[in-house]
């Protein structure tokens, strides 16, 4: 099964440090968990080793280093990219004489299975400012908006979940508009991300590795 946790460094934003950080952090983690725990999004069947007996537990840890507005979108893109890069080694379960099962990992580092991330959704945040809405709001734009809509879109354009955040109200008409914009943006987001991931994959091990502060 699948488990997601979020932690943030204190320098990311003043609201997220200390005690208040935990509350906000669990809030964000719960929202993300709702998005990704949909049955069709992450292919949980491929995590299975022995039906009803053994399976892989997938832990996703998100570390927030800097907060520049629109974190949900960024986190969902990062999770999808990370899942794409994941390599799970193949295991065999051996039966012992007494009936205890032993798990054997294959020694070959290249003998692994990859996850299918086609159905993993990406979150698009639409913030309402005045009478219109913006996608990918910066910190200042977020400060101006009273309400925003988080929708998670798969690469085919299907909406998997929707959440409204903020203390303002949203008109039902504007919600439809936002959903349509979100679907459009979400599809192009998936295409761009897939292109970049394939490009990085094709570079192989010779790709330049750049750290966060680089």
């Amino acid at each position: 099964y699948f488990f997601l946790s979020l932690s943030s460094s204190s320098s990311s934003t003043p609201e997220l440090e200390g005690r208040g950080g935990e509350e906000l952090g669990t809030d964000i983690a719960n929202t993300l968990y709702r998005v990704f725990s949909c049955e069709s999004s992450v292919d949980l069947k491929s995590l299975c080793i022995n039906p009803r007996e053994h399976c892989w537990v997938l832990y996703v840890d998100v570390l927030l280093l800097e907060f520049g507005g629109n974190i949900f979108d960024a986190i969902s893109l990062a999770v999808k990219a990370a899942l794409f890069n994941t390599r799970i080694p193949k295991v065999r379960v051996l039966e012992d004489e007494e009936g205890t099962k032993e798990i054997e990992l294959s020694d070959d580092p290249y003998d692994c299975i990859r996850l299918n991330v086609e159905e993993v959704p990406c979150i698009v945040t639409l913030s309402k400012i005045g009478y219109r809405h913006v996608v990918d709001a910066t910190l200042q734009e977020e400060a101006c908006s009273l309400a925003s809509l988080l929708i998670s879109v798969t690469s085919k354009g299907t909406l998997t979940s929707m959440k409204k955040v903020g203390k303002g109200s949203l008109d039902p008409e504007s919600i439809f508009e936002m959903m349509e914009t979100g679907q459009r943006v979400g599809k192009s987001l998936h295409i761009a991300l897939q292109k970049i991931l394939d490009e990085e994959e094709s570079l192989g091990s010779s790709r330049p590795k750049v750290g966060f502060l680089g």
Partner: protein
Amino acid sequence: MAAVTMRLPQARGPLGASVSRGAEKHLVAPGDTITTDTGYMRGHGTYVEDEKLIASVAGVVERVNKLVCVRALKARYNGEVGDIVVGRITEVQQKRWKVETNSRLDSVLLLSSINLPGGELRRRSAEDELAMRDYLQEGDLISAEVQSIFSDGAVSLHTRSLKYGKLAQGVLVQVSPSLVKRQKTHFHDLPCGASVILGNNGFIWIYPTPEQKDEEAGGFTTNLEPVPLSDREVISRLRNCIVALVTHKMMLFDTSILYCYEASLPHQIKDILKPEVMEEIILEARQRLLDLEG
């Protein structure tokens, strides 16, 4: 319709080719030894340890005879009398307003330092005090001049001229105060169709040029008519140009902003924020500024 571009992470290279200046500046980082000569007096930004003069901030070393100090590149705004600042009202107190100007302490705008409608020589009465919120509320942006500095470093502002006052529609850009060049005037009407106020505290206000030049109200009425699309485009292009100049740590004054604007005309407004396009525009602007200097 929606255009999304992504790129793989790349190590940040040095921003553009370093252009040789006249005299090489002595740049230091915190902990760098400035000099081991004990004959110097230490100024701001330095401290003495083991008979060595060490810098405590990152910046440029300035030497005046025997005084050595380090002027930080990115610091809060230090007020000087006569500076123009753009600030945001944070509090309305008994006889004054507290204004946020990106300095260490909130600046103060006294009720006696503003232009009240009805002439300047009116005595401030109790009704004026109660009506303070009608003039300036929390969240309003004002342009003002520094009148004096209190002993603790807080700056006292005044708007006793018709060109200062409440700012209406426009775009605010917050930059480091050290990037705004000190000039004779900070109110510029750019020929591209917008006006800009370069506050010494690093707050830059871009607004559409008002048609009629004489306003009687002393700067407190706000013009809330909708701004036409062409003006909005000019203003957003100017804002992106200023962000580009700040990223490349170039000094901000009317000529540099204008050259950067002209260099950015062939590109789309949103492309200016891309690193390659930014470098290209800045290179061209820098070249023109060097040609100007002779």
